[in-house]
């Protein structure tokens, strides 16, 4: 069982019913970040999915951090999720 924590900020929490932190469990032994993103789209977001994903990818303008590290340094969607990881999604698209 793989337990991780998802964090939403910068306005994205409005897509998850106001929940900023969502703990989730996966039965898989090993999975990559694209599976987690797919899980969020299917299970956590009720509407306006296009605000989170566009096509196969997280919407441009959303920053992703893995344990406070920019996902660009971690292989982005190919990152292999580890037990206890905290994955943060922050929208840069709101307000000024």
């Amino acid at each position, binding site marked *: 069982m793989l337990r991780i924590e998802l964090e939403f900020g910068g306005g994205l929490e409005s897509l998850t019913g106001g929940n900023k932190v969502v703990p989730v469990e996966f039965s898989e032994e090993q999975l990559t970040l694209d599976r987690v993103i797919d899980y969020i789209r299917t299970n956590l977001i009720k509407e306006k999915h296009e605000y989170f994903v566009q096509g196969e990818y997280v919407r*441009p*303008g959303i920053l992703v951090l893995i344990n*406070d*590290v920019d996902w*660009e340094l971690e292989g982005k969607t190919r*990152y292999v999720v580890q037990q206890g990881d905290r994955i943060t999604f922050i929208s840069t698209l709101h307000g000024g």
Partner: protein
Amino acid sequence: MKRRLCSHCGEAFANISISRKNKHLCRCCFYNYLEDTVHQTIVEEKLFQPGERIAIGASGGKDSTVLAYVLKLLNERYEYHWDLWLLSVDEGIHGYRDDSLRTVEQNRDDYNLPLYVVSYSELYDWTMDQVVSQIGRKSNCTFCGVFRRQALDKGAKKIQASVLATGHNADDIAETILLNLLRGDHARLSRSNMNKSGMSEEEESCCSNTLRRVKPLKDIYEKEIVMYAYFKKLKYFATECIYAPFAYRGHAREYLKRLERIRPHSISDIIYSLSCLHIKDAEQRQVQQQCILCHSISSQKICKACQLKASLDKGQGISAIHR
């Protein structure tokens, strides 16, 4: 995957990729990088004088929150004795601005800066809620934009600030350039051309007798601002205005973000490209004069804000847009 070390100090693990500079920095070096970049803009382009009163246009959003935080920090670090004020505009949008003003009040308390709020209802006798109930949601952002620009001017004058600093970042500037290009608006395109001081040419041409407007974050990318606020745990308000579909601007914005993902340089390249362009007909400077009704600086006898207000008062708000 093995974690990479900071490309600057080589000691701590890297937290953020600054791909346009081929850097990956740890938190500490990233803070220094952002603060030094802003400081460099201020020093090289002589944005502020020591001791002067600076109004920070504060919306409670990420950009102005980071701007206020960094200016306060630089003020203390370099002992500039700037007299920093937060200046907010209350557009009168229930369920949006009233909430974000609470964030600004939080900034006021956290950073110990004085706050002055100027409202549309006191300046124009109209709130945006009332404007929208008259004209609908089609051109409401035009009214709000014209009113806000002037409200910031008037607010800055009221608190006797000599300069207004706004939180516009590199992405905002590139986005506006793109938008004006896509609209074929060569006059605005030319005006969005930044000169070295971070002011548009238009703004500089009239700055001898009026408020200077500066953009200290103009060399900082939006990604960096959001990362800085996240790591520093700065509180900001991140809800879209309830009246702002920003349809067309939104497309330019998304397009820019897609370009950035493919090529992080795109944003600075767009700004650079415009600075190299010479736009025909743009030399015809409109003569600046005082509005005969409200005495603010205007290119016409009656300023745009007074024109819009007059048509709202007559119940013909929407027609003012199509003139």
